[in-house]
């Protein structure tokens, strides 16, 4: 095992990213899909921090980006959950496959 560095973290973040993507593509429950989104966003955050730390420590661009992503994620999650709750009211279900009336 070697000394962990940028590439290790990039591996983790990319792994987490695609785990999130996989989850998003396969989970049928809307809330679990939302969780997958969170994973995706977190992996990106990790990327930013890692780049900031290892490559561009002269400015805090990556860090600020992360902070703002976190804020946006919160807002997005809030709206998404509101929508999901409303969907639950209208559909009596939060299974994504139950909401496919609109198609073709």
């Amino acid at each position, binding site marked *: 095992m070697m000394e962990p560095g940028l590439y290790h973290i990039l591996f983790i973040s990319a792994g987490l990213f695609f785990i999130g993507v996989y989850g998003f*593509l396969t989970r049928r429950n809307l809330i679990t899909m939302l969780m997958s989104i969170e994973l995706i966003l977190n992996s990106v955050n990790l990327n930013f921090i890692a780049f900031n730390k290892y490559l561009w420590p002269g400015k805090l661009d990556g860090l600020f980006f992360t902070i703002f992503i976190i804020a946006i994620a919160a807002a997005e999650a809030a709206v998404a959950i509101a929508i999901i709750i409303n969907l639950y009211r209208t559909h009596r279900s939060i299974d994504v496959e139950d909401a496919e009336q609109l*198609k073709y």
Partner: protein
Amino acid sequence: MPNVIYILLIPILPFAAFLLLGLFGRKYIKNGAGIIGTLCMLIAAALALYIAYGYFFDYGKLDGVYRKIIPLKYNWLEFSPGISIDMGIVLDPISVMMLVVVTFISLMVHIYSLGYIKGEERFPTYYAFLGLFTFSMLGLVISTNIFQMYFFWELVGVSSFLLIGYYYDKPSAVAACKKAFIVTRFADLGFLIGILVLSYYGGTLDFNELIQRLASPESNEFKTAIASSFLGLSAITWGTVLVFIGGAGKSAMFPLHIWLPDAMEGPTPVSALIHAATMVVAGVFLVARLFPVFAISAPEALNLVGYVGAVSALFAAVIACTQTDIKRVLAYSTMSQIGYMMFALGVSGYGGEEGLGYTASMFHLFTHAMFKALLFLGAGAVIHYVHSNDMKDMGGLRKFMPVTHITFLIACLAIAGVPPFAGFFSKEEILLAAYQHNTSIYWIALITSGLTAFYMFRLYFNIFWNKEHHAHGEHHGEGGFVMMMPLILLAIGAAGAGFIHFGEFVSSDGAPLASVFHLQFSIAPVALGFAGILVAWILYKKQNDKPDKIAASVKSLYIAAYHKFYIDELYLFITKKILFNLIGRPVAWIDRHIVDGLMNAIGDLTRGIAELIKGFQSGKVQQYALYFLCGAVGLLLLFIYIWH
């Protein structure tokens, strides 16, 4: 020189009558229509005679040669410098002669029709059409330009169409007029292409220049035209042959003759005017007009003219022997006589004594106009009387229609070539010309001449002798003075026209040609003529069964001839089966199903694909994301590994 206005008035007057009667006839001048038309025609005829007199006896000759006078030429449509349609007037022996013939016969028909068509609803229309026809025919004969001739040629065709279809509610008349138009139109295709060929090599459309260039071996145009050959024949030969096809169509030469018998569906005076005396000789006139080119530059074409004429003459004569519809008999006889004129041209040479055939042809044209018009008008009177065209319904009419009988007899004698009637002289000249140049044509002509006498007298006896006529309930006599007068005038013409020394006025090169008359030469044809009359006498003077027996003895020939040698059926086969079924129908089908089908198929295909791929829009948001991802991956693969 006469005032050009006078010459111009000759065609203009009938045209004016046409406009006047055509536009206002139906409503306003219903009763006066005939008078107006006839008056116009009368003036025109008088002017034509005046011009003819002036031309032949006053100013026409220059240094002993009848020259071409062009008093008027108007550039009507210029295609390119040098090639233009000029509307003009040419006065030369044949055009002047034709002016006289056309106006005279037309006048006769106008007068005759006053009685014949009287009381019909479309009386003004009839006169309007007659006016149109006369105008076109006159325009044709005075053409200075080959395209001008084509112009009037077509107009003549259409007025013939209109007149044949005069009884438009009769299906047979409709069929006949269509047939006439289409067959001649088909021939005109040849004429048109011929014009294109000749004009291209001649570099002009003007008759004079065309003849000057293409009929003189020194000119450049001649050399190029002779040098450029197609299928072994020179361009001039092709051009003249094609032009001749046009002429053959109008003149009902074999095998383009099929329209003529059917054209008898028109009113009989119309047949007399158009399908006997004037329009059908347009083909002859056309060949005569271009005669120097034929004779000097395209002897092969001239030969063709000769043979086609000869074959038509004989062919028509044979058929005429078997027909029972009197107008059809006359129609075939017309065809046969025009065959005479045609082969007379075919056996002629250019200039001097060689040009005898040319003179003879024109002479026959002239005399034929007289006696054939007379025959038709006479037949018209007969038909008017018995209300039938079929000779089976006739017989013994000599007592009831004496004037008709006598005039008809004169005409029959004239056509049979009995001296001293007009036909004799012209026919003699033709036979002489044929004898001098082409013996095989001569023999055909001789046989035809015998047959002519036979069938004409078969007709004559069947109408006026044979069985006794059982009078119909109502009798209205022979027709009034207006119908008799033309008969008598024409009979005078038919009897006396032969004594004109035609060669002095009309010859291939304009120089007078002494009339030759060989007594010993005339014996054979006259004898044959009499023989024909005799046979007809024996067979048809009294009602008997000999004709049937003879018919039975040569049954197959008889039946074939009776059915006009099945040429009509052949045409029908070609048009109905081949043109319609093998070309028209498949083309229409292909258009709707393949060409259009292709266009529709593109539409259907698009819709099909649209339906096929609708599954992508499945409504499943995860699937959307999956496609999203795949799209991104696809772009990555494409641009990182393939495109980069």
